[in-house]
């Protein structure tokens, strides 16, 4: 259970006040001890105010907000009965390079649409075409948060940079998960597969109770896997597919593999 430091502000103010009094007294009476005490109190009072946490949301509220949207996505995909592959489209498919969409083809083994075909539906959150569907991925906001933390857009990075920086963003900056490992492997056909292992993601409990996702929803990915797919597609400039996701230890470890599609 998280301990909330709710009393930090009054304690800081008391420390600042006492510290200021001690410092003033030490100057009047030339007392080294009082000066040390005053300096310490003032410093720690300021530190307590400065390192106060940002607004935190109870985990149970986050889970309550997250579950319905993912369940709706799952039901929507099943209703439309799309059977094709789910592909994360790179920035070159869109007029606005910061846009990211996923393309779900109606039938299996259908080729990807052309950028001109995609751009007609670019601004719609969900767009159905005769051959497939364009959808805003669930990890889009998380990927924007990652870019904001990184200080640059993923378009300006490359795969190697991503392998170095994403774990730091996940673990240290945003504390999304306890650990993230990313490795890339090239196979004999020169296509690249990326493996990601996420340990203790923040939503591990949410997905313990959620219904089993369909094959298609698993290919879209949960918000974290989706955000990683968006990062990969932007960094490489190529379409990406989530080929496999596995959950272990009650959702505490997730392994996902991403295939970069050579066009």
């Amino acid at each position: 259970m998280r301990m909330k430091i709710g009393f930090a502000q009054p304690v800081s103010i008391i420390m600042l006040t006492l510290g200021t009094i001690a410092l003033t007294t030490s100057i009047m009476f030339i007392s080294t001890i009082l000066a040390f005490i005053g300096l310490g109190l003032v410093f720690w009072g300021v530190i307590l105010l400065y390192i106060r946490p940002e607004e935190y949301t109870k985990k149970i509220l986050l889970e309550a907000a997250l579950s319905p949207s993912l369940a709706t996505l799952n039901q929507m995909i099943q209703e439309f009965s799309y059977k094709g592959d789910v592909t994360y489209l790179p920035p070159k498919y869109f007029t606005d390079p910061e846009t990211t969409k996923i393309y779900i083809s109606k039938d299996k083994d259908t080729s990807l649409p052309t950028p001109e075909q995609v751009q007609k539906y670019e601004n719609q959150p969900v767009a159905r075409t005769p051959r497939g569907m364009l959808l805003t991925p669930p990890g889009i906001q998380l990927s924007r948060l990652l870019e904001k933390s990184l200080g640059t857009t993923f378009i300006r990075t490359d795969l190697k940079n991503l392998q170095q920086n994403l774990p730091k963003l996940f673990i240290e900056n945003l504390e999304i998960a306890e650990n993230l490992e990313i490795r890339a492997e090239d196979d004999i056909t020169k296509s690249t597969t990326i493996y990601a292992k996420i340990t203790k993601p923040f939503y591990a409990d949410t997905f313990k109770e959620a219904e089993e996702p369909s094959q298609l929803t698993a290919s879209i990915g949960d918000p974290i896997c989706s955000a990683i797919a968006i990062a990969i597609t932007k960094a490489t400039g190529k379409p990406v597919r989530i080929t496999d996701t596995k959950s272990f230890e009650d959702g505490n470890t997730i392994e996902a593999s991403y295939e970069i599609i050579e066009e």
Partner: protein
Amino acid sequence: MGFPLTFWDISLWLAVTAIILLITSELISPYYGKTNILINKKRLRNVSLIVSTLFLITVAIRIATIITSP
């Protein structure tokens, strides 16, 4: 009436504070899995680095004083 602490007293105080801050910052780092403590860890780390740097500056001044003294 003057400030009762000398430059070297402040240097000593900076050293002690830097050690406390650096150790605290490292122990509550998310890399050790300690994610239940609700403080802004990045700011704490920045403060500890600034205080350490200030201490090192006082050390540099001390060394310069020793070198340049006749």
